[in-house]
């Protein structure tokens, strides 16, 4: 198990800075995720950890040893690529055995290790096949197997599930979690899928514009997003964001598009703010009630356990998640924002208030 530390990492390509100063400490055995939209620099950072790219400035430490100048082979990391990067001209067996062959392991060691790993990832029956003869999920397993067989200090995974279909992705997610528990090797995982990040990781770092926006356990990111970007990025469907105005300080009341909400006193306020509320934090009812506001359903998407409903009131739209089943498009509904679930952001800095 290895602790990974990044200090002041910056990286420029042809004068454009894509990573603008990253400091991170990833604990031993931790499952750590870099989350962010494409182009945020997360993959580049992973490549820097792997040694495939050099940071422009900054140092990388594995267990307090500076590895910045070591080439990839000497870092003892294993990497799983989005495209799996399987060698098309080798059998599954040879693919998994590749890292061992590089290390010139003896014949029977290779044989034994590969079989062990193949059992672990459920590929015993496919060892003689070529990658082109495998399904997407099986290829994914080969890539994993090839990473595992190394018993590396650090696992690096670059969007390993994004090429799979939705159902398989969920299965593999569970499997990854199981593998991590069994092997407990420090893992850095890159994804743009917030759900994946939340379900897998011990901690998540959200990247945007080459910077870490927030870093912490997934649930904390969800509950207390540090800024508007994180708030919008995490959660599906995304948080509703509306303009809000402070109408009185004592007690604190804000006006969100004409709806007055009284908030707890221990919060910070500004005159003009942005208010965010997650779809599940809006209470919906099909019968009128004095504390609720009237709106019209524009679109209703029944999803089984719950419905996603887009409602229109006062010219603005709001996405709501509800367990009510009898909501139809065009229908009048009544809703209420749950005050303690309202997030407030500074409209200038976009920071959480």
């Amino acid at each position: 198990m290895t602790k990974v530390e990044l200090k002041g990492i910056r990286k420029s390509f042809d004068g454009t800075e894509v990573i603008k100063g990253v400091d991170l400490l990833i604990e031993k055995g931790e499952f750590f995720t870099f989350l962010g939209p494409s182009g945020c620099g997360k993959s580049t950072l992973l490549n820097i950890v792997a040694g495939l790219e050099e940071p422009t400035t900054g140092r990388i430490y594995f267990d307090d040893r500076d590895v910045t100048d070591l080439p990839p082979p000497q870092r003892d990391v294993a990497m799983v690529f989005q495209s799996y990067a399987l060698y098309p001209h080798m059998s599954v067996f040879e693919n998994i055995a590749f890292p061992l062959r590089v290390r010139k392991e003896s014949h029977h060691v290779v044989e034994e290790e590969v079989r062990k790993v193949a059992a672990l990832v459920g590929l015993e029956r496919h060892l003689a096949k070529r990658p082109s003869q495998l399904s997407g999920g099986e290829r994914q397993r080969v890539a994993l197997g090839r990473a595992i067989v190394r018993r590396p200090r650090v696992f690096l995974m670059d969007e390993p599930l994004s090429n799979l279909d939705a159902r398989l992705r969920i299965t593999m997610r569970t499997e990854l979690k199981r593998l991590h528990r069994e092997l407990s090797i420090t893992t850095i995982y890159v994804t743009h899928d917030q759900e994946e990040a939340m379900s897998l990781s011990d901690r998540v770092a959200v990247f945007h514009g080459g910077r870490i926006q927030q870093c912490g356990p997934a649930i904390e990111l969800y509950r207390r997003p540090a800024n508007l970007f994180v708030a919008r990025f995490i959660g599906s469907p995304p948080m509703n964001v509306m303009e809000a105005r402070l109408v009185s300080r004592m007690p604190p009341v804000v006006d969100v598009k004409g709806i007055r909400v009284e908030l707890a006193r221990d919060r910070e306020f500004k005159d003009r703010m942005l208010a965010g509320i997650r779809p599940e934090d809006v209470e919906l009812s099909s019968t009128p009630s004095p504390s609720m506001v009237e709106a019209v359903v524009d679109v209703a998407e029944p999803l089984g356990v719950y419905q996603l409903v887009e409602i229109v009131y006062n010219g603005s739209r709001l996405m709501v998640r509800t367990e009510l089943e009898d909501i139809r498009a065009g229908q009048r509904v009544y809703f209420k924002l749950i005050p303690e679930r309202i997030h407030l952001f500074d409209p200038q800095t976009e920071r959480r208030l």
Partner: protein
Amino acid sequence: MKDRREGYRFLLPAAVVLLFVTVYPLFYVFWLSLHRRHLIFDISRFSGLENYAFLLQDERFLRALWNTVYFTVLSVGLELVLGMVVALSLQRAFSGRGIVRALVLLPWALPTVVSARMWEWMYNTDFGIINYLLGVDVNWLGSPFWALNAAVLMDVWKTTPFVALILMAGLQVIPRELYRSAMVDGAGSLYIFWRITLPLLKPVILVVLLFRTIDAFRVFDAIYVLTGGGPANTTETLSIYAYKVLFQTLQFGYGSTIAMVVFLCVGFISVFYVRLLSR
């Protein structure tokens, strides 16, 4: 189904042209090769396989066959190795890539006749720049030892860029992640080259080899202009021998026999490579 039948109509013009201008002449040449035919003196009689039998005792033919094989193997081998070196070192992106590619393409695009003239002048014993720069007095095109090698060098100059460009295109098709993955797995560059690059490039290499081998085997213009086959026929290839027999003395029978041999050899070469490719 209507589509399919219509398809034939689209193929028709090409098929007619190809049949008339390539396939028919090929049968014709075979027919000619079974004759003693001497256009100048209007001699023409069927002679069966006599011409083919004479091939075996025709020293000049055997010499030409050997020259052709030597030229082909040496130039194609060199072009492949050098082309690979160039391709590997140029595959990274760099600024001015377009201009460099154009410059590198230049030798390939020049008329072979022009490049042969250029090299003939550079090889000139007295006034040639090669001897001047090397500070030697080598009779490049005149000595039996150098002449064929000089022709090989010219061919290498002319086609290495072509080989390199095709190999480069082949390299670019290989996903970079395969290299990265191998690197992370601890493989050194040489190991990656042998175990990943080379096997994955194999189809492209074979295609290049196929093209180049066939091209080199039927070489004509370059040597015809550079040395005309001399000295002492040490640079006379099969195509040149066939051409001389055909058109300097209009012996269409025997000339066609040699031409037929060139065709058969090229056929064997193609079958050989296509076998390797489809394996």
